[in-house]
């Protein structure tokens, strides 16, 4: 299976949020209970039930108004910190498509990935005691369909294709509009790339890590603790024990972030 990249061309986003809804639709995620947020951004942040989100940033520049809409979701790192951090086999997997996929069945809710992610992507549900995030629609891309968000995008802002082709396209487009490609660190590859318009500083945007790196703690965890822990415990019983160690006894909590059940 080839490696793919999702390309996000911010010069073309009109903030219609087709991607945000298409994601919920394909992945069968419930609507959250939201309120007036002071801007169009809603929900305000990613969550267990919201895997992709359009973020709206407005500011003044040269006396004019700039309004930038940004599709925010998992970056699908080539060397994903979440996978490295995850102690439970199969819960977070980097696939050969480049998609970093989570499988709720194996998630033990330890939140190691939440801490590890340099982009602050995985979201934890207290109710479910699991994490969730964008899977790059692994079930679609392995069947020859683009991710739901890309399929829905009307403006050409979201594109999806073979890795090399998308990298080339990203740079071509960045050159054409005088913009930049993000992330630009050659030592930190991702399967999501942005074309950022020239007049935009990354610092002006919400929820962007301008210089993503693998957290050093992860290197320690990966090399020393993780193999040891799993070997030492082993098996399903071991996982349950690990879950108990991290989480304490299971409690059925009141409705917290489930949103509306119908959908």
């Amino acid at each position, binding site marked *: 299976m080839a490696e793919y990249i999702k390309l996000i061309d911010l010069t073309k986003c009109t903030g219609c949020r087709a991607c945000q*809804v298409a994601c919920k639709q394909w992945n069968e995620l419930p609507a959250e209970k939201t309120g007036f947020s002071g801007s169009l951004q809603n929900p305000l942040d990613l969550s267990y039930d919201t895997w992709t989100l359009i973020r709206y940033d407005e500011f003044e520049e040269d006396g004019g108004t700039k309004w930038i809409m940004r599709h925010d979701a998992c970056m699908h790192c080539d060397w994903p910190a979440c996978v490295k951090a995850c102690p439970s086999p199969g819960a977070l997997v980097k696939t050969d498509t480049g998609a970093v996929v989570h499988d709720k069945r194996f998630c033990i809710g330890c939140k190691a990935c939440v801490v590890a992610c340099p982009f602050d992507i995985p979201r934890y549900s207290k109710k479910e005691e699991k994490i969730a995030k964008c899977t790059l629609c692994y*079930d679609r891309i392995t069947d020859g369909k683009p991710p739901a968000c890309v399929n829905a995008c*009307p403006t050409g802002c979201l594109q999806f294709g073979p890795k090399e082709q*998308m990298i080339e396209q990203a740079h071509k487009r960045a050159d054409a509009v005088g913009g930049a490609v993000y992330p630009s660190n050659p030592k930190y590859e991702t399967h999501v790339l942005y074309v950022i318009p020239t007049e935009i500083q990354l610092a002006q945007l919400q929820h962007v890590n301008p210089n993503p790196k693998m957290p050093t703690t992860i290197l320690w965890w990966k090399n020393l603790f993780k193999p040891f822990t799993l070997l030492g415990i082993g098996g399903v019983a071991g996982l349950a024990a690990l879950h108990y160690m991290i989480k304490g006894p299971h409690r059925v909590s009141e409705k917290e972030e489930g949103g509306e059940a*119908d959908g």
Partner: protein
Amino acid sequence: MDISRRSFLKLTGGTLAVAGIGVGVGVTPALAQPRKIRYASEVPTICPYCAVGCGIIAHVRDGKVINTEGDPNHPVNRGSLCSKGSALFQIPNNDKRLNAVLYRAPGSDHWEEKSWDWALDRIVRKIKDARDKGFQKRNSKGQIVNRVENIASLGGAGLDNEEVYSLVKFKRALGLVYIEHQARI
């Protein structure tokens, strides 16, 4: 945009074949599909929101719409949709949809469920009584006008062509002149 939809897609036009009069369409199971929609029939539809007229495929299994997404073969939207079109799934799958005839009696503070026959019989009685009372053979100038001014009809932009044509035909046959819809507001 091109790569993501046109060459990348395996979804073929074959399953969305052209249909002539009297021939159904889109009941071919699509094999090359993610598990969620595998073996579902694909029924082409057009988005009911704005007038761009985007193509949407409804995936149907056991008579239930299990997925909706942009029709990649549609020349205008090429698979894409906006937030409203993307949410279309929640129209056929929505527990707030009306599923019974509701009636509110004069002065009442609640709905009552009624049968179609009861409601339609009562409605036509109301139409006929109003029409018979309000029918104007001549206007104040004595010209023959054969019209009814005490009944009005609003709406139609959400109906199919065949429905709105029938609606207009029906209303004109009644002699109504107050016939209007969303195009003028």
